[in-house]
């Protein structure tokens, strides 16, 4: 099929929000306004203008001129901060609300998983709710009949299927609800953050299910804040900010750009004289992240090494300097810190006046899939031990996911992988009395050196 599954053309959605109250009105004006307001509302109401009737006259564009197309079978992530318009986009595409302008065409049966368990009634049994929810989501009764056993099995509800859902634990309700939605078999699917429901085991099951739906040729749009899940599932990402499309492209690039931007850091930072004016001995000119080909980057494949580079200008001779990097995880935990201890000038060496570049190389297959803000500290070691210059979170590097092949530390997608680092470890197995190093690279093990 040559036709696109989804075509979105300049789609926009405006909301009316309440105008902030004018506090400078006189008492007389206020009274006259209070008297007039109900009549104005009624007038708005009669003319079918709901927003005028509700006194909401401030315009707010939740989505503005967003255009993109998707081929059949494409899996696209929508990333952006809260309030960027991600959910609005999905609501427009699933026809829950109407666009203010622009239009979209969707080819195929649509299933949207915006929130699980819509229409679930606590007094009804699990079985009854499956039928009710199925019909609300767009399944015919016959389809539910055909899928019923599968739905119950997936939900792990088992014998409780005929118990009223009010006696279910919240986890059970969510499982059943997701299970119904996951068996919709749509051709076009919209998923909004629903993967963050249930316990860890069920979340994993959900994300596998969504992935298998995606792999079955379904066209999918996913909204998620989980960068790991998104990069694992999608090939392409769309970045929204303030209702506008900022970028559209390969998922790793977009996600890392988005993450760096959302923490306000990129892979390079150049300093003006003003920023370093209090430095007496040496000035930091720039901090950069480079890949092994020397390009300045803000994202790096988990398998590849990269370096953090600092350009220094030493102003005064006869001082020894030390540079230190601190890498934090995106949730502000320390990942590791490093000093340039290999530098021959370390501790006693004197630095020449002029420009110096220091690089710290971080090996591949070491850091986790995450965004690492990097803090830089420049110490003067001799003659006086003091901090010459320090900058917290100056640049950042986003380590992107790679799951396939023997070089993946966890080999499979386990969803969120714990820890700030993800090195490939050497494993061995002792069978009987023999100590056997496992060096079968094809199975993902690394030989003992």
């Amino acid at each position, binding site marked *: 099929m040559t036709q696109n599954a989804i075509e979105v053309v300049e789609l926009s959605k405006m909301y009316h929000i309440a105008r902030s109250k004018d506090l400078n009105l006189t008492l007389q004006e206020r009274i006259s306004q209070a008297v007039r307001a109900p009549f104005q509302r009624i007038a708005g109401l009669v003319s*079918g203008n709901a927003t005028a009737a509700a006194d909401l006259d401030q315009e707010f564009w939740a989505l503005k001129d967003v255009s993109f197309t998707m081929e059949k079978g494409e899996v696209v992530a929508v990333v952006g901060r809260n309030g960027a318009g991600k959910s609005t986009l999905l609501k427009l595409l699933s026809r*829950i609300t109407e666009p203010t302008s622009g239009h979209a065409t969707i080819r195929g049966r649509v299933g949207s998983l915006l929130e699980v368990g819509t229409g679930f009634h606590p007094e009804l049994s699990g079985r009854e709710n499956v039928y009710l929810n199925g019909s609300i989501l767009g399944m015919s009764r016959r389809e539910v009949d*055909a899928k019923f056993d599968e739905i119950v099995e997936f939900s792990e509800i088992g014998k409780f299927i005929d118990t009223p859902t009010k006696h279910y634990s919240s986890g059970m309700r969510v499982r059943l609800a997701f299970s119904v939605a996951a068996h919709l078999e749509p051709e076009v699917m919209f998923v909004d953050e629903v993967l963050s429901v249930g316990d860890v085991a069920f979340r994993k099951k959900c994300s596998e299910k969504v992935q298998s739906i995606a792999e079955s040729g379904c066209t999918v749009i996913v909204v998620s804040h989980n960068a790991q899940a998104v990069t694992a599932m999608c090939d392409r990402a769309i970045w929204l900010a303030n209702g506008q499309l900022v970028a559209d492209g390969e998922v790793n690039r977009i996600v890392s750009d988005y993450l760096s931007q959302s923490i306000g850091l990129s892979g390079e930072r150049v300093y003006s004289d003003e920023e370093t004016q209090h430095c007496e001995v040496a000035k930091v000119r720039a901090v950069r992240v480079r890949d092994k080909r020397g390009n300045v980057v803000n994202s790096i494949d988990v398998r590849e090494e990269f370096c953090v580079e600092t350009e220094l200008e030493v102003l005064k001779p006869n001082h020894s300097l030390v540079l230190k990097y601190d890498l934090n995880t995106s949730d502000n935990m320390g990942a590791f810190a490093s000093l340039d201890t290999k530098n021959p000038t370390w501790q006693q060496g004197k630095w020449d006046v002029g420009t110096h570049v220091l690089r710290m190389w971080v090996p591949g297959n070491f850091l986790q899939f995450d965004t690492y803000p990097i803090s830089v500290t420049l110490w003067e070691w001799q003659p006086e031990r003091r901090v010459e210059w320090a900058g917290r979170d100056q640049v950042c590097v986003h380590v992107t996911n790679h799951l396939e092949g023997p070089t993946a530390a966890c080999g499979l997608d386990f969803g969120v992988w714990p820890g700030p680092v993800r090195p490939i470890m050497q494993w061995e197995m002792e069978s009987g009395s023999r100590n056997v190093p496992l060096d079968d690279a094809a199975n993902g093990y690394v030989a003992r050196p």
Partner: protein
Amino acid sequence: MTTSSDDVIEIRPTKGWAALSLGELWRYREVAFFLAWRDVKVRYKQTVFGASWAIMQPLIQMLVFTLIFGRVAKLPSDGLPYPIFVYAGLLPWTLFANSVNKASNSLVGGGAMLKQVYFSRLAIPLSSVASSLLDFFLAFLVMGALMAYYSVIPTANIVWLPALILLALFTALGVSLVLSALNVQFRDVKHVVPFLVQTWMFATPVVYPLSVVDSPNVQMLLALNPMVGVVEGFRWALLGVDTAPGPAVMISAFVAITSILVGTLYFKRMERTFADVV
């Protein structure tokens, strides 16, 4: 399952008075069915008397009205025993009143659904109205018992009963569509409905016969209230009251159909903002 690759959905803003798109309602008929079925299933859960409430409601009302309007106020009853006279009126009235009460709050009550899934929104108030039918049929059994007790033999006019029931449902739906859509934006509706329904009842010949009004012209004017035709029609069809309310029913039917059209149009017009304001 039906793989409908030819499904093409066009999303664009609708302007002005939208098309009725009843075809879409037909597509989502199962949703309407399941929602009505849910209402019915849930209504008497965790009650001691269960579905017998459907009978007790009009029955107790009948007893109270008989005492007050029959015995104390001595209202006329077209020569029939007052209890059966008032019950024949309460029967369609309760159907109407319950429908309007439930349906006018249905969209607000189903707010989560409006925000999370798409289906024809008409299905929501429609299912509320439809779910009132079950109560009606249960209450109808009492009517049968009363008729047996008072030895009232239904006339051949009883064949018109389904049409009269439909008329009551149409009226209820027309009113509910407007009220439910209004309720989304203005919760004032919630406070107005009980009062509106009660006033409407006294404006309808439920506790008194239409014949208390002498002038036929005034009778026709009153028939602009579609429930006049329904209630009078019920008495005529079930109890054989000799005044065939033909013209009144015609006027009522015309008003009811107009109200459902206006109601649907208004509903469709307001529908596009439901998810944004509910």
